[in-house]
C-alpha cells in the first residue's frame, strides 16, 4: 500500500504545484489585462483629451507650426498605445483561459488522487431527514417572497420622468400646432418689439409706433450723433439689435465676418471670422456686381444667439459671446446678382428662402429650407416652383395660426409656419422680386418692379389667383425697396425716388412725390415719421400722413445702401464706411 500511496501523493503534489503555477500565471495575465485597460476604455484611448485640446488650440492659432508638430507626435503616440493595448488584450484573452484550464485540470487530478472512498455513516451519524428542517424551509421561502415583494414596492415608488397628468392633458388637446416639437427658446412678441431682431425689425414691419424718431442731427459736427465707428468690412446688410448688443455682418469675396458692438458706446465687443466651412467655397454662381453684396443678408437673433447668412451660402450661428454654435455651407446658391435673402426665425426653426435660377437643363431648384436653429440641421426642405428672388419672407398671424409668406416670381405662397405645409399660392408676380412682402390691414402686400403692387387676402387655401386679390395697382409699384405701413397708410418707394402713399385697405393712392436721388435702403416708420436714406447719403424724413409733408433732409456724408435699424430711442445707420448711432438733437 505504501508505494501506491506515495505515487498518489507525489502526483497530487505535482498537480497542486502546477495548479499554483498556472494560477499565478493567470493572475499575472489578469492583472496585466486590467492594467492595460478594460474593454470599454480601449477605444476611448483614441479620444485623447490632450489631442482634442491641441486641436482646439490650433483652431485658434492656425499658423502655429510647433503646435502642428506636437499634434502629429501625440496622435502617433495615441495610435501606438491603442494598437498596443488591443494586441495585449487579444493575447491575454487566450492566455488567461488557457492558464485557468490548466489550473482546473490539475486541481481535478489532485482531487482525484487524494480522493477517499466513501464510508457508510455510523448509526446516529445519519443525517436528519427533511422533516425537522421543513419549517425552516417554509419560513425562508416566505422571507424570499417578502424580500421580493419589498423590492417590487420600492421599484413602484420610482416614478417615471413623464408627468402623466400633464401628458394626458396634452394628448387631449386637439390642436397639434401647439405641441412643441423642438427646443422652444423663442422670445415673446413684446421682447421682439423692444429690440430689432431681424431685417426691418420685429415682424419685419419696419415700423415702431410708440417712439419718437430723431429729426435733426449733423454728421459733420457730430451733433445728435452718439457714436460713429469705422466698419472693418463692407456689406448691404442691416444691423440687428438685442439688449445692449448690435450685430452686423461684413464680407468680401474671401472673408466673412460677424461683428458685435455695444449699442450704447459703439465699442466693438468681438469679431467672428467665419473662415472656410466644409463644402463652402469662395465661388459664386454669377460674379457679384457690387462689393456690398457679399454680406447682403441681415442677420437674425432670438435673444440668445445670432444667425447670419452670406452670399456664398455660409450660414452660421453664434452665441452672444461670439462663439460658434454651428455653421454650415448651403453650397453655391444660383442667384443672378448675389444671394441676399435674410434668415427668419420662427420658434425652433430658422427659415431661409433659397430661391434660385433654373439649372442649365431647365430644372427649378428653388426651395424653402427650415433648419433646427439649435443644431443647424435640416428639418424640412420644400421645393418651390419659382425663380431666384431677393425678398425675405414674412411671418403673419392669419386666423389664429402663423403663416410664412414668401414672394418670388411668379408665385406668392403662404405656408403654415409651424409645419412648412403650403396653404395657398397666388400667381401675381412676373418680374424679379426684390421687395419683401409686408402685412397691412390683414392683407399681404407684395410687388415687383415695373409690374404690379398687389394686396392678397391670406385666408384662402389652394390656388387663389382668381379669388383672393383685394386690390392691385400697376403704377408706382415697389422694385428694390420694401414698402412700409403704419397699418392705415402704405408707403411705397422705388429705386428712382418715387414715394407714393396708398390707403392700405383699399389701394387708393393718396399722393406721390419724386424725391431727389436713387435708393437701395428700404424706408422705416418711427412714430409718425418715415425715414428714407438715398444711395448718395441723404436722409429724407417725411411725415407718415395723408399728404406729402417733408420734415427734414439730412446729409450723412457717405453712401448708404443698408436699411436702418431702430431700438431704444436710437437710430442705427450703416453707411459705406461707418456705423452711426443717432439720437437726434431735437
Amino acid at each position, binding site marked *: 500500500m505504501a508505494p501506491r500511496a506515495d505515487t498518489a501523493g507525489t502526483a497530487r503534489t505535482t498537480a497542486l504545484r502546477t495548479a499554483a503555477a498556472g494560477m499565478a500565471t493567470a493572475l499575472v495575465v489578469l492583472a496585466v489585462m486590467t492594467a492595460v485597460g478594460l*474593454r470599454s476604455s480601449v477605444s476611448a484611448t483614441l479620444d485623447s483629451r490632450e489631442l482634442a485640446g491641441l486641436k482646439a488650440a490650433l483652431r485658434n492659432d492656425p499658423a502655429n507650426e510647433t503646435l502642428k508638430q506636437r499634434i502629429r507626435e501625440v496622435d502617433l503616440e495615441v495610435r501606438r498605445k491603442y494598437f498596443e493595448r488591443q494586441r495585449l488584450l487579444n493575447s491575454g484573452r487566450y492566455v488567461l483561459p488557457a492558464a485557468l484550464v490548466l489550473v482546473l485540470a490539475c486541481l481535478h487530478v489532485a482531487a482525484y488522487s487524494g480522493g477517499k472512498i466513501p464510508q457508510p455513516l455510523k448509526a446516529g451519524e445519519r443525517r436528519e431527514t*427533511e422533516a425537522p428542517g421543513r419549517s425552516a424551509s417554509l419560513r425562508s421561502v416566505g422571507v424570499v*417572497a417578502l424580500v421580493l415583494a419589498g423590492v417590487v414596492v420600492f*421599484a413602484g415608488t*420610482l416614478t417615471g420622468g413623464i408627468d402623466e397628468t400633464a401628458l394626458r392633458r396634452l394628448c387631449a388637446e386637439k390642436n397639434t400646432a401647439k405641441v412643441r*416639437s423642438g427646443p422652444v427658446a423663442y422670445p415673446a412678441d413684446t421682447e421682439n418689439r423692444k429690440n430689432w431682431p431681424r431685417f426691418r425689425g420685429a415682424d419685419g414691419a419696419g415700423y415702431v409706433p410708440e417712439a419718437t424718431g430723431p429729426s435733426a442731427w449733423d454728421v459733420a459736427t457730430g451733433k445728435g450723433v452718439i457714436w460713429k465707428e469705422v466698419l472693418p468690412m463692407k456689406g448691404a446688410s442691416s444691423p440687428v439689435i438685442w439688449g445692449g448688443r448690435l450685430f452686423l455682418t461684413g464680407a468680401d469675396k474671401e472673408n466673412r465676418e460677424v461683428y458685435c458692438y455695444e449699442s450704447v458706446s459703439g465699442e466693438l465687443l468681438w469679431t467672428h471670422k467665419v473662415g472656410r466651412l466644409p463644402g463652402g467655397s469662395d465661388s459664386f454662381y454669377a460674379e457679384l456686381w457690387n462689393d456690398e453684396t457679399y454680406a447682403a443678408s441681415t442677420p437674425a437673433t432670438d435673444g440668445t444667439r445670432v444667425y447670419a447668412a452670406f452670399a456664398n451660402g455660409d450660414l452660421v450661428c453664434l452665441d452672444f459671446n461670439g462663439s460658434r454654435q454651428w455653421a454650415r455651407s448651403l453650397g453655391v446658391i444660383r442667384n443672378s446678382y448675389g444671394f441676399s435673402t435674410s434668415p427668419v426665425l420662427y420658434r425652433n426653426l430658422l427659415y431661409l428662402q433659397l430661391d434660385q435660377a433654373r439649372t442649365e437643363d431647365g430644372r427649378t431648384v428653388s*426651395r424653402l429650407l427650415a433648419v433646427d436653429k439649435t443644431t443647424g440641421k435640416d428639418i424640412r426642405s420644400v421645393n418651390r416652383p419659382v425663380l431666384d428672388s431677393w425678398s425675405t419672407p414674412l411671418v403673419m398671424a392669419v386666423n389664429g395660426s402663423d403663416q410664412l409668406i414668401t414672394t418670388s416670381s411668379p408665385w406668392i405662397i403662404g405656408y403654415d409656419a409651424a409645419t412648412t405645409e403650403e396653404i395657398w399660392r397666388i400667381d401675381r408676380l412676373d418680374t424679379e422680386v426684390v421687395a419683401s412682402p409686408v402685412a397691412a390691414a390683414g392683407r399681404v402686400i407684395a410687388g415687383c418692379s415695373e409690374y404690379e403692387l398687389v394686396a392678397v387676402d391670406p385666408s384662402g387655401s389652394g390656388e387663389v389667383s382668381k379669388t383672393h386679390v383685394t386690390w392691385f395697382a400697376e403704377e408706382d409699384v415697389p422694385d428694390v425697396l420694401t414698402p412700409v405701413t403704419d397699418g392705415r397708410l402704405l408707403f411705397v418707394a422705388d429705386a428712382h425716388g418715387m414715394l407714393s402713399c396708398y390707403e392700405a385697405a383699399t389701394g387708393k393712392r393718396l399722393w406721390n412725390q419724386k424725391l431727389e436721388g436713387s435708393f437701395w435702403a428700404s424706408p422705416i416708420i418711427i412714430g409718425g415719421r418715415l425715414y428714407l436714406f438715398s444711395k448718395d447719403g441723404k436722409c429724407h424724413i417725411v411725415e407718415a400722413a395723408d399728404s406729402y409733408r417733408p420734415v427734414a433732409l439730412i446729409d450723412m456724408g457717405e453712401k448708404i445702401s443698408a436699411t436702418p435699424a431702430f431700438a431704444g430711442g436710437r437710430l442705427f445707420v450703416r453707411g459705406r464706411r461707418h456705423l452711426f448711432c443717432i439720437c437726434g438733437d431735437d
Partner: protein
Amino acid sequence: MQRLNKTCCAGLVAVLAMLYALPAESLERFPPPDFESGFVFPEVTKPGPRPQLLEYLDVSVLIGALSLAAYLGIRKRSRTGLAVLGVFSLAYFGLWRRGCICPVGAIQNVALSLSDGGYVLPLSVAAFFFLPLFFALLFGRVFCSSVCPLGAIQDVVVLKPLRLPMWLEHSLGVLPYLYLGTAVVVTMATGRFMICRLDPYVGFFRLSGRLAMLITGGILLVAGVFVGRIYCRFICPYGAILRIFSIVSKWHVRIGPRDCVACTLCEDACPYNAILKPSGESAPGGIAGRALLARLIILLPLLMLAGYIHGKRLGPVLSKMHPRVRLAEQLWVEEERNARVRSDQTLAFIEQGGVPKELFGEALLLKSKNESWGRLLGLWAGAVTGLKLISLSLRRRREGYTPDRAKCVSCGRCFSSCPQHRAERRGLLPVERSVPDGS
C-alpha cells in the same frame, strides 16, 4: 438695378455646375465624376453571415449530444462519458458557437414571436427551444447534465462542494421560476432580452464582453468551486421549465443500478443537494401536517391576488426598460427644461420626422399596458411562492435514496458512490441491463 451680363460669366457657370451639384435634399451633393482615366468603381464587399446549413448542423449536434447524454446517463451509467461530453459541449456550443444561440436564450425568442407579430421564430431557434424539453419529458434533465455549455462550464469547476442547508436550497429554488416569469414578461412587454444581457458565462465563451458581466461570471465561477452550479440551481430560467418536465419524465437516471439498500454511502455524493433520503420513521401527514397543508392551500389564491394587485407597481419598472417610453420620457424632460442641447435619442427622433405628441400618446398607452404585464408577473410570482410552500408541506414515503427529479441534473456524480455500481464495474456483480424508470 443693372442687369448682369450673363454671357460673360457663362464659362464660370459651366465650371461651377460641374464642380458642385446644388445642395439638394438628396445626398448627391457632389455627383460621382466621369473619370477620364477609365477608373471603374470598386465593388462593395459583402461578406455573408454563417450559412443556413451550419445552423442545421448545430441542431443535429444538439440532437446527437442529447441522445448521447441520455444513453450515457441512463443506460451506460458513465460519469466519465458524461464529463467528456460536457467538455465537448462546452467547446462546441460554448467556445466554437460562442454561446449563441442556446435554449436558455431561446425562451425570449419564443416569447417575442408571441408578442411581436413582425418576428417569426426561426426554425433552428424553435428546435433549440423544444428539443431539450422533449428530451426532459423522456429522460429528465439530460440537457443540463452535459449538453448545456453554461452547465458544463460550471460543472468543471466543482472541486470542493459544500452542502447548503435545505432551507436555503428551498428558498433560493424559487428564484428560477420568478426569473423565468420576469424574463418572459420583460421580453413580451419591452422586446428586451434580459437573459442574454445578464448571462454571466457567455463572456467567457466569447473571450470578451461587458465588464460587469465578466466580473459577475468570474465571481460565480470561483464560488462554483464550493457551491456547485449556482446558475443552474438558483437562476436558470430554462432549468425551471426542465424541472417540471423532469418530474414527469418517462425515464430518469438512478443513483445505483439496482434497488437501493439504503447503505447511506451516496448521502454526500451529490454536490447539488439533489438526493432524497428515505422518509424514515417520522410519521407522514398527521393532523398538524394536514392543517398546515390546508392553510397553505387557502394561502395560494391569496398570494396570487396580492401579486395581481401589487404587480401594477411593476409597470413603471417595465416602462423604464421600454425603449419607446424611455424616449418619450427623455423628450418630455427636454421639452420641460427647454433644453438647448438635445440627447442623441431625441435628436434622432426629431430627425426621423417623429411627432412628439404621437410619441407621448404611445408612451401613455404602453405605460398602462405595462401595468397589466406587471399584474401578470405578480400573479405568477404569487402562484410560484404559494405552490412552493404547498410542495414543501407535502410528504412522501420513500424507501431508499432516490434522485430529486426536479433538482437532479443527471450529471452522474453519485454513480460511483453506490457500492452496487462499483461492484458491477469491477465485475463483481452482473451488469443490470433493465432500465427501470427509477420512481
